[in-house]
C-alpha cells in the first residue's frame, strides 16, 4: 500500500530578551546553578509576576512576519502540574487567546517547488528549569536559572508530508526568528527546540492516522532522522497488523531511533485557567503599527529584491538570503566592491562557503570579512589580480595574513600589465614553440589557448591573460 506521512511541528523559540518574562533576572546562558533564579523564578511565597514589554513586542514582531491575526486581547493561563524544575507547580502559558493567531509561511522544497505551511497559533510561555539526573547517585539536581526564560511556542497545522518538508519548515522558521532578531536560535543551548507530531495514512485518505509526539529533536538533522525512523516504524507496525497508539516518544540520536515514554508520564490534566496574577494584554493598533515600522526586511522580500537589484538567479538569491548574516555579508561585499554583485555572489557561495564548511566555522567567526571579500572582488575587477590569483589571496586572508592589498604586495601577486614585459614573454613563447605556432598559422585556432597558457605559466600567473592573448595574435597573424 502507498502511505502518506502527516507531520505537524511545535517549535519552542527562546526570545532573546535581557531579562526573564516575568522577573528582572538575567537570561544569560551558562551561569552558576540557581544564581539567576530570583524570588519570582523560584516561586517563593507572596511574590508576583510582571510581564516584560520586550517579550510582547517580539511575539508581535513574529506575528507580523507570518501575517498572523493578532489578538486584540491576549490572556495568560496557568498550566498546572508538578515537576521539580517547575517551581510554582504551574507554568504560566497561554491557552485561550494566544498572542499570535493564524498565520502562514512559505517554504522551499528540495525539488525546487514552494509550499505554504499554515501556522495555527503562537503563544508565550515561561521556560522551566533543568533537572540533572546524572550528577548525584541518588538525587536529581535542580537548576532554576532557565526557569522563567521567555518562550514563544509556534504550532503548525499538520501540513508537512515528509521529513524533508519538516526540516525545510524548521530551517525557514529558524532563519525568520534570526532575521527578526527575536531569538539567537542557538540550538546547542536549547534556544530553538522542536517536537513533531507524526502519523501515517493510506495515500488518498482524508482521515488522519493516530499520531505519535516525538520529543527532543534539537537539530535539523535529528528532525529528519527521527521522523523518517518513526514513519518506517508506524508503517511496519500497521502493515504487520498492529495499531499505532497515541503517545510521546523520545528520539535517541545515538541509536537513531524513537522510543516510547509510556508509563513514565502520569496521566495529565493540566487544569488550565486564566492566571489571576496577570491581567489581559491589550494589543492595540498603535502598538502593532509601532512594531511594524521596526520590522526588518524579511527573507522572502529580500530574496525578491536580490533577484531584481542584483540580477541574481532565484536559486542564488535563495541561498544568499537563507540567513540574515549571509545576506548582510553579501550586501556588504557588494558595497565594498562597488558593484559586481554576480562575482560577489559567486565568491560568497563558492570560496567562502567552502572554507566555512571545511573548517566548521560559523559565518560570524569568518576570518575573511565581508569588506575584505569586497576588496578582493574589486581587485579582480580593476585587473590588479586575476581570478585565479585571487584564490591564493583568499587563502592568505583566511589564514589571517592581513589585508587584501598588503597580501598582493607582500607576495608580489600583482598582475603584469607592462606591455614591454609581456612582449618579451610572448617572444620567448613563440621562439620556444615553433611547431605550435606553425599549426596556428595553418588555421588551428585552438592552439592559441595552449600558447597563452605557456605564457601565463612562465609569468607565474601574473601576466594579464587578455594582453598576452592580443599580443600573440598580433605577432602570429
Amino acid at each position, binding site marked *: 500500500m502507498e502511505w502518506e506521512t502527516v507531520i505537524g511541528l511545535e517549535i519552542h523559540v527562546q526570545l532573546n530578551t535581557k531579562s526573564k518574562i516575568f522577573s528582572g533576572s538575567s537570561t544569560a546562558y551558562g551561569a552558576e546553578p540557581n544564581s539567576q533564579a530570583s*524570588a519570582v523564578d*523560584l*516561586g*517563593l*511565597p*507572596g*511574590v*508576583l*509576576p*510582571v*510581564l516584560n514589554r520586550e517579550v510582547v513586542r517580539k511575539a508581535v514582531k513574529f506575528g507580523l512576519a507570518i501575517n498572523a491575526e493578532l489578538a486584540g486581547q491576549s490572556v495568560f493561563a*496557568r498550566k*498546572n502540574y*508538578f515537576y*521539580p524544575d517547575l*517551581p*510554582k*507547580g*504551574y507554568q504560566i502559558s497561554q491557552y485561550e487567546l494566544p498572542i499570535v493567531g493564524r498565520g502562514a509561511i512559505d517554504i522551499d522544497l528540495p525539488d525546487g517547488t514552494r509550499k505554504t505551511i499554515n501556522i495555527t497559533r503562537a503563544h508565550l510561555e515561561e521556560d522551566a528549569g533543568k533537572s540533572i539526573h546524572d550528577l548525584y547517585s541518588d538525587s*536529581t539536581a*535542580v537548576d532554576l536559572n532557565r526557569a522563567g526564560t521567555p518562550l514563544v511556542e509556534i504550532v503548525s497545522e499538520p501540513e508537512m508530508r515528509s521529513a524533508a518538508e519538516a526540516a525545510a519548515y524548521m530551517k525557514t522558521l529558524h532563519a525568520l526568528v534570526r532575521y527578526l532578531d527575536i531569538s539567537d536560535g542557538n540550538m546547542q543551548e536549547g534556544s530553538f527546540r522542536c517536537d513533531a507530531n507524526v502519523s501515517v495514512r493510506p495515500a488518498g485518505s482524508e482521515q488522519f492516522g493516530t499520531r505519535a509526539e516525538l520529543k527532543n529533536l534539537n537539530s535539523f538533522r535529528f528532525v529528519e532522522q527521527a521522523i523518517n525512523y518513526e514513519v518506517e516504524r508506524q508503517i511496519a507496525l500497521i502493515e504487520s497488523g498492529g495499531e499505532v497508539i497515541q503517545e510521546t516518544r523520545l528520539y535517541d540520536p545515538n541509536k537513531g531511533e524513537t522510543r516510547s515514554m509510556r508509563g513514565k508520564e502520569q496521566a495529565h*490534566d493540566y*487544569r*488550565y*485557567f486564566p492566571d*489571576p*496574577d*496577570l*491581567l489581559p494584554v491589550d494589543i492595540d493598533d498603535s502598538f502593532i503599527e509601532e512594531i511594524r515600522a521596526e520590522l526588518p526586511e524579511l527573507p522572502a522580500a529580500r530574496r525578491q529584491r536580490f533577484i531584481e537589484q542584483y540580477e541574481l538567479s532565484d536559486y542564488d538569491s535563495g541561498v544568499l538570503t537563507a540567513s540574515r548574516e549571509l545576506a548582510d555579508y553579501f550586501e556588504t561585499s557588494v558595497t565594498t566592491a562597488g558593484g559586481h554583485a554576480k562575482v560577489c555572489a559567486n565568491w560568497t557561495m563558492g570560496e567562502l562557503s567552502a572554507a566555512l564548511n571545511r573548517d566548521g566555522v560559523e559565518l560570524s567567526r569568518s576570518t575573511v570579512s565581508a569588506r575584505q571579500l569586497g576588496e578582493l572582488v574589486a581587485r579582480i575587477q580593476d585587473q590588479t589580480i586575476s581570478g585565479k590569483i585571487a584564490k591564493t589571496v583568499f587563502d592568505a586572508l583566511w589564514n589571517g595574513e592581513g589585508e587584501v592589498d598588503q597580501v598582493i604586495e607582500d607576495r608580489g601577486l600583482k598582475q603584469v600589465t607592462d606591455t614591454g614585459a609581456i612582449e618579451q614573454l610572448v617572444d620567448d613563447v613563440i621562439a620556444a614553440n615553433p611547431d605550435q605556432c606553425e599549426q596556428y598559422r595553418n588555421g588551428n585556432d585552438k592552439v592559441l589557448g595552449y600558447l597563452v597558457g605557456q605564457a601565463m605559466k612562465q609569468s607565474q600567473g601574473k601576466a594579464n591573460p587578455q594582453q598576452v592573448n592580443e599580443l600573440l595574435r598580433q605577432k602570429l597573424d
Partner: protein
Amino acid sequence: MYLNTLVAQARALAAGEISSTELTRLHLDRCQQLDSRLNAIITLSAETALAQAEAADARRAAGQAGPLTGIPLLHKDIFCTQGVRTSCGSRMLDNFVAPYDATVVRRLQDAGMVMLGKTNMDEFAMGSSNETSYYGPVTNPWRAQTVPGGSSGGSAAAVAARLAAAATGTDTGGSIRQPAALCGITGIKPTYGRVSRYGMIAFASSLDQAGPMTRTAEDAALLLSAMSGFDPLDSTSIERDSEDYSAQLGDSLEGLTLGLPKEFFGAGLHPDVAAAIETAAAELEKLGARLKEITLPNSSLGIPAYYVVAPAEASSNLARFDGVRYGYRCADPADLQDLYCRSRSEGFGREVKRRIMIGTYALSSGYYDAYYLKAQQVRRLIRDDFQRAFEAVDVILGPTTPAPAFGLNEKTADPVSMYLNDIYTVTANLAGLPAMSLPAGFSGELPIGMHLIGNYFSEGRLLNVAHRYQQVTDWHERVPEGCE
C-alpha cells in the same frame, strides 16, 4: 497609653510625651502578659521592634518623623517580613524566613512604624474562626471559649485586647471584616488593587486584598493612606496615587443615601444583630443620611461562586508548597511522588487540603465550564447588581455577620455552616468593592458589626460614614473585661 488609639499615640509621640522606645516596650510587655490567654500572636519580634523604635526616635530627633513614625503595630503572619518568620499559620512554613518584605510591610516601615510581631491566623487564611491555625485557636477577648472570627482572628483579637492600636489583615471573603465584627473593632477591605499584594502569601489572587484593623475609622484612615498606592511589583495594583483618607473624615452625611439590601435582613439573621443594625441605621439617618431599601438579587449566589473561585485559585497558588525549595519536607521520602504527597499532606491542615481538593476538582477536565466558568459568570451578575444599586444609593449598609461570635469547636465539624458566616461579606470580594465593618452594638457581652459597602475607590466615603457614626456612639470605646 496602650489604651489610646493610633491617632492619640501619634499625638503623644509628636508632643514628646513618650518615646517610641517606651511605647514599644509598653506594648511588648502587654503582649507578653495577655497573649497566653489569647494566643493572638505567633511570633513576637521584640529585638527587631526595639531596634525599629530606636530608629524611629532618632528620626524624630532629626525632625524627619511622619504621623505614623514610632507607633507599634502587628502584622498578620501572611505578610512576608525579612528576617522574621512568616508561617501563614501553617506547619508548611513553620521554618520559613522570607528574604524580602511585603510591600505593605515595607511601606509602613518606611513610614517609621514599629513591628511588634506577627499575628495568628487561619492556615493560609482559610477559615472564619481562626481554628485552622497550626499554632492553635485564638480566643475572643470578649468571652472565653469563643472564636474571634477569621482568618485575621489574631489581628482582630490583638487590637480588641489593646495589644496594639493597629494590626494589618487580609480579606479574601470577609477575613478582615468578619473578625473585626466578632471582636468589636474597625476593619476595612479596600477596592481590589488599591493595596499591593506583593509579599502577601496568596490565597485567592483575584479576591485577596489587605487592609488595616484598628479601633476607630480615624485610625483606619491614617493607616490605609500609608498602606495603599501603586506598586510596580504587583500587576494587579492600580496606577492611582494614594489618598489622604483622613481629610474626608469630617464631611457631612447630609444628602447621603444609604441602601439597605432586603436580602441582608432575611431569614438566618440573629435578632440582636438585626436590631443593632436597624438602630445604627436610624442613628445615621439622624446625621442626615437618607435610608432606602434596595435589592441585590444575586447575593445568595455569592457563597456558591466564592467556594468555586477561591478554592480553584488556591489549589494552584498552593502548588508551590512542594517540599523542594523551602518549607516543610517530609522525612525520608521514598521517591519524588512520596516527597510531594507526604510533604503536602503532613504540611497542610485539614481545611487547606479540603479546599485544594475542591479547587482541583472544579478546574479538572470536564468540570471547568460547569464550575469555574459558571462561577466567573455569576461574579459578573453580582457585580452588575452592585452597579445598579450604586445608581440609586451612595453606600450600602447591613450586618457584617449573621450572628455574633460562636463557640470554639461549635462549627468545625460542619464546613458548610462555617462557610455561611461570610454570607454578607463575600460579594464585596467577588465584585472587588471596598467594604468595612465597625462596632454597632452588643449581643450580651459579644460585639456586633455593621457592614458598609461602597463603590470602587470610595474608601474615603466609607471611612467618613464610619467616623461620623463613631463620633456619636461609643461601641468602639468599650474594652473587654480583663483588658482594661
